[in-house]
């Protein structure tokens, strides 16, 4: 079964005067997927979303929705609907009229009423039609905004930082709810976020943007395990980045000199553009073994001193100062009720497997 591309961006560029907000964006979004555009603020992700919605026209390139070129099609005639960052709930209308807004005059009254009731039921606000807009909590506003957009049965739902205004607990709850909603409706969701955890927990695929460019588009697991460069690697989760030397390659394996960790064999990362003699490797903090005695069965070990301890509840983070490394190495250990418990200044051993080292290639900047 082939899945259609619901959105295709072809060489899309947006320029404001001399400022390039987005450039060279090529992206295919599949029907029914949950896609996130992830990046730091000002990276151009919202611009891309607004070009899909039709609030901004690309300076160059083409936006196709369901195979149709959207050039010259105003936002009100596009088969997309949006959940705004501020939710944009109409303050002069009650919940029912807010949700019914887009259907007024387009469907018979009885049908509108029924669809409003269904939409509110879907976002768990059943029966709140008469509630005033000003009487809603942040979470309820978000649900009204969702219902108001989904009632239009869009081909694509666009979400602009939909959870950023909510507190942490509510945000986590909404992440699951929105994901479930998207899967049961089968509508394509495109979400813009700067929160990597939000993107990872909700999305089928993530597009990472920096400085107006789409750097990597992949599933959350691939992004985490095989980031395309240093920038993406350090934006998605935590990463120890160590400058290393490439000693030789055999097939898919690279032999490198990983500074303090010595000589080690690692797998080539297919997402990396180039690898020359000077290259970087990445090590996730949870992939390192930490022990009081020199660990066995690890091809590479190094001794260091604990310079910092941070307790996160489920994890303990250690900063280990190692001879030959500029920055301390981050190590994260699951908190199995104090099986490991090091203090600042303790001497420890770190153990590393070649399989947990990520080839980050050479940065071409």
């Amino acid at each position: 079964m082939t899945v259609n591309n619901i959105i295709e961006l072809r060489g899309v560029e947006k320029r404001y005067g001399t400022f390039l907000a987005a450039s060279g964006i090529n992206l295919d979004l599949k029907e029914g997927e949950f896609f996130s555009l992830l990046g730091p603020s000002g990276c151009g992700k919202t611009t891309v979303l607004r070009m899909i919605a039709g609030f901004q026209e690309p300076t160059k390139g083409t936006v196709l929705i369901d195979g149709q070129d959207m050039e010259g099609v105003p936002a009100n005639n596009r088969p997309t609907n949006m959940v705004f960052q501020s939710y944009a709930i109409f303050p002069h209308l009650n919940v029912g009229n807010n949700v019914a807004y887009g259907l007024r005059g387009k469907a018979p009254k009885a049908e509108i009423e029924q669809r409003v009731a269904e939409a509110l039921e879907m976002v768990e606000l059943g029966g709140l039609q008469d509630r005033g807009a000003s009487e809603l909590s942040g979470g309820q506003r978000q649900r009204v905004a969702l219902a108001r957009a989904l009632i239009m049965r869009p081909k694509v739902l666009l979400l602009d930082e939909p959870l950023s205004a909510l507190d942490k607990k509510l945000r986590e709850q909404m992440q699951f709810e929105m994901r479930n909603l998207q899967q049961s409706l089968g509508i394509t969701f495109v979400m813009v976020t700067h929160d990597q955890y939000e993107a990872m927990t909700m999305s089928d695929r993530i597009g990472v943007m920096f400085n107006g460019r789409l750097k990597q588009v992949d599933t959350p697991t691939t992004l985490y395990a095989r980031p395309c460069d240093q920038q993406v690697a350090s934006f998605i989760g935590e990463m120890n980045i160590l400058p290393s030397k490439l000693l030789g390659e055999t097939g898919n394996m690279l032999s490198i000199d990983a500074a303090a960790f010595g000589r080690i064999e690692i797998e080539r990362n297919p997402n990396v553009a180039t690898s020359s003699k000077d290259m970087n490797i990445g090590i996730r903090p949870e992939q390192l073994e930490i022990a009081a005695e020199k660990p066995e069965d690890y091809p590479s070990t190094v001794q260091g001193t604990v310079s910092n301890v941070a307790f996160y509840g489920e994890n303990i983070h250690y900063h280990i100062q190692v001879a030959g490394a500029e920055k301390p190495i981050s190590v994260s250990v699951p908190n199995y009720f104090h099986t490991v418990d090091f203090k600042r200044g303790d001497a420890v051993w770190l153990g590393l497997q070649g399989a947990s080292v990520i080839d980050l290639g050479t940065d071409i900047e």
Partner: protein
Amino acid sequence: MIFRSEASRGYTLSAPATAYVGFLVAAPLVILIAYSFWTQTYVTLDKTPTLKNYSDAFADPLVRHLMLRSIWIAGAVTVVTVALAYPIAYFIAMKARKKTIWLLLITIPFWSSYLLRVFAWKLILGFNGVMNSALMMLGLIDEPLDFLLYNEFAVVLTLAHAWAPFAILPIYVSLQKIDPSLLEAATDLGNSPLQRFMRVTLPLTIPGIIAACLIIFIPTVGDYVTPALVGGSDGKMIANLIQVQFGAANNWPLGATLSLIAMLSVGFVAIVFVITATQIGRRIR
């Protein structure tokens, strides 16, 4: 400490304003009400309470006529001013780049005296005025038009010009407060620009429109300078009659009665207007 409680501190702080309002608004109003129940007998004042002034005023067709005409002219001024002010306010709030400069330009008429502005209109609209000379010079007319000045039209035009900033500012403020994402949301939900204006912008600016209407309507009903200068006999309003009572006719009790009747009529019209406008706003969905 003298000001021990919150309340006494509050009273002390508001005392100057309270005294000011008491002496300059409440007291004159009480005196006015008292006068309306008295009678003028040539030079002396008969202080026996009577309703004769009221029955006289209601019986006089001139009073009724002038009152209705005042409300009609003030209503026309309000409609014209707000209708012209809305697009200006919209332009400044939504489209203009240098808002401060535009707002400054709008207040420029205030830099000259109100009386001068009325005289300026006299010069423009007069028989040998700017308008007529220009039209004659262009050969569009053979003799001066005489319907420009000394009628209701001249009063409405002059007042609409004088009160324009008072309409622009409250509407501007209410437009300025609209979150732009609300307009985008309306577009996103399928509205054309016109539909969006009718369903979002207009209902959200109703408070501004109501404020503008009241600010213009209430004072213009009682305006007497403008009708006296550019109104002629057709443009006379209730305030001109009241002024005569306190002046030439020397009948203060009747003047007071007319003032109170005007005040109550205006209040009534204003309340009906506010309720209607609010109701209309609620109907828009």
